[in-house]
């Protein structure tokens, strides 16, 4: 298969995953329980992006508890809880990661 065809198929499927539920689901037909469950989508999806990126190394093995990424994530977490500031949380995490890595 030519790489161009592969890219176009991937792009189409990708696009359909974004459009699919917009076209197929009629919000009026969702019952209240399901609507409430949709409030949990960020809490259900984002951790699956966060956890492997923090707790697994490049080979997919668990890192030590004192890994720079783990410590920086904990610092960022408490910064976020206390400050409720998105940008500050990201920067505190990154800067503490750098401090642990380079000093």
């Amino acid at each position: 298969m030519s790489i161009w065809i592969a890219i176009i198929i991937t792009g189409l499927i990708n696009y359909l995953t974004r459009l699919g539920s917009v076209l197929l689901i009629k919000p009026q037909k969702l019952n209240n329980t399901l609507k409430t469950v949709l409030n949990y989508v960020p809490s259900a999806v984002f951790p699956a992006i966060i956890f492997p990126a923090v707790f697994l190394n490049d080979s997919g093995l668990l890192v030590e508890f004192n890994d720079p990424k783990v410590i920086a994530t904990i610092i960022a977490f408490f910064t976020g809880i206390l400050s409720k500031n998105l940008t500050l949380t990201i920067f505190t995490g990154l800067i503490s990661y750098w401090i642990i890595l380079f000093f």
Partner: protein
Amino acid sequence: MRTKKQNFVRGFIDVLPLLIPVVPFGIIFGAIGIELGFGPYVTYATSIIIFSGASQIVFFQLLSAGATSLVAITSSSVISTRHLLYGAVVNQYLSNLSLYWKIGLSYILTDQAFAVSNEYFKKNNNEKFKHYYLLGSGITLWIVWQLTTIIGILLGSIVPEELGLTFTIPLTFLALLINYFRKVDHLIIIVISGMLSIILYDAPFKSYIIFSSLVSLLIAYLIVNMRKKQK
């Protein structure tokens, strides 16, 4: 009532902090495409046609490691299935829009645009032009992704790998979840989804994201039902 422009500008402003990982990631992606030998046109085309960082990287990595096209297509598509959940959420607020709007907005419904729009829609559901918020945040992200891909293609890895900037990806999603950690029910879902993603990490076709998400949503469903019965 905010005007179209005001909604658009708010979307633009709110998505800015979420671009912190997108800039280095786009540059790294462009550079990786060239390094793996895909050439500038193919590398850039994925940013327009696939337009999903994680899917694009997996697509290239698998092909260059000798996987068949079918495996590459399946894996990057499975990674994208999380968008089905995003679509289901924003659709509650945008169901009155015309088909053209839905077709257009779906293309720019990324993790970041979804994250800010979901919060905005919850608080501003009666804004008539709230879809311009998604348009503003989505287009901003699209433009930055296109530009940074091109920078990576042209200039190579100008972002030193030692800086570990890919770490800003989990940091951004952590920051986005921060307010949910305060609620016990959400905290349970977050921990379950996170643990599952670690346990299922080696599942075929990178399906750990959608599996962890769906199982956690099922548990959310049980929690919601349980609470209803208590009332």
